């Protein structure tokens, strides 16, 4: 139960901060490339440094951080199922998020601001989630079995 309340409170905090800062993690990648504006890119640096610092600190304080850092335990790169999915999924997320104009977090924030375009995106996003859970996941499982 505590995790549900925690995520609700954390969601409120990051939604509030996200609206104030207009932070977007896709813009953090696209703007440096498109207009040589490296301002939004600090979002990616802040996020990775913040989470890394958090995992190190909270782990040292006795928090639940199993297997950190993962890199030491991750098996060698192969092009079988999970790595293939990481490649296909990553390329698709990057490409279509640029066309949409932002990352899923930014669209949640914009929908909270009352923007109809963001709400339309989120309806498609949620329908997509159900479609994935009902159909795509079965196709992926069959694919994983077929390639071993």
């Amino acid at each position, binding site marked *: 139960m505590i*995790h549900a309340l925690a995520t609700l409170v954390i969601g409120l905090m990051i939604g509030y901060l996200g609206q104030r800062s207009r932070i977007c993690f896709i813009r953090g990648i696209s703007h440096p490339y498109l207009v040589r504006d490296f301002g939004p890119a600090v979002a990616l*640096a802040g996020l990775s440094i913040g989470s890394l610092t958090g995992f190190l600190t909270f782990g040292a304080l006795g928090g639940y951080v199993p297997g950190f850092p993962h890199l030491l335990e991750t098996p060698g790169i192969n092009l079988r199922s999970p790595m293939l999915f990481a490649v296909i999924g990553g*390329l698709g997320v990057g490409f279509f998020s640029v066309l949409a104009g932002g990352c899923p977090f930014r669209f949640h924030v914009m929908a909270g601001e009352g923007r109809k375009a963001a709400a339309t995106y989120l309806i498609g996003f949620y329908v997509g989630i159900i479609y994935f859970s009902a159909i795509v996941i079965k196709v992926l499982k069959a694919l994983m079995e077929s390639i071993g």
Partner: protein
Amino acid sequence: MNRGISMFIVAFAIGSLAALAQAFLGVAPPVAYGICMVGHPRDLLVWMANGILGTRFAIQPVSVEVPVLTAIGVLAGSAISAAQRKEFRTSSVRSPALTFILGFLVANFALILGACVLRAVVFAAYGNLHMIIGFLCIVTGVVAGVEYLKRKGSASQ
């Protein structure tokens, strides 16, 4: 405050909260799942569908009993901030069908990856090699998307 510094601080806070959620607030397993803007909405929707419609869609272990509520929190937090600053915008949608389809596609590819952009960075910081590769592919996809938009823009001029 300088825009870059404030964005860095906000991003740093988001990353720290994601780590805190996992370390002390029970938002795990899986690991590096403290904040995810596709996984958490998925858990909430699937939890409701399984409970109401009796479906048996896959859900992350943390959300089996009670789902994570990040998506609701973000929507409400943003609405509160927008209300305080009088920044509610009810602008019209230029191409609703395309916007809907893009949302649909991003959700599906993000679930194939197993993370939104935010969680991909947090999971990469956790040291997961798959997600480091996944993040590099997101960057490649973004570059491809920008090039596509540039060519489409110059072709239509």
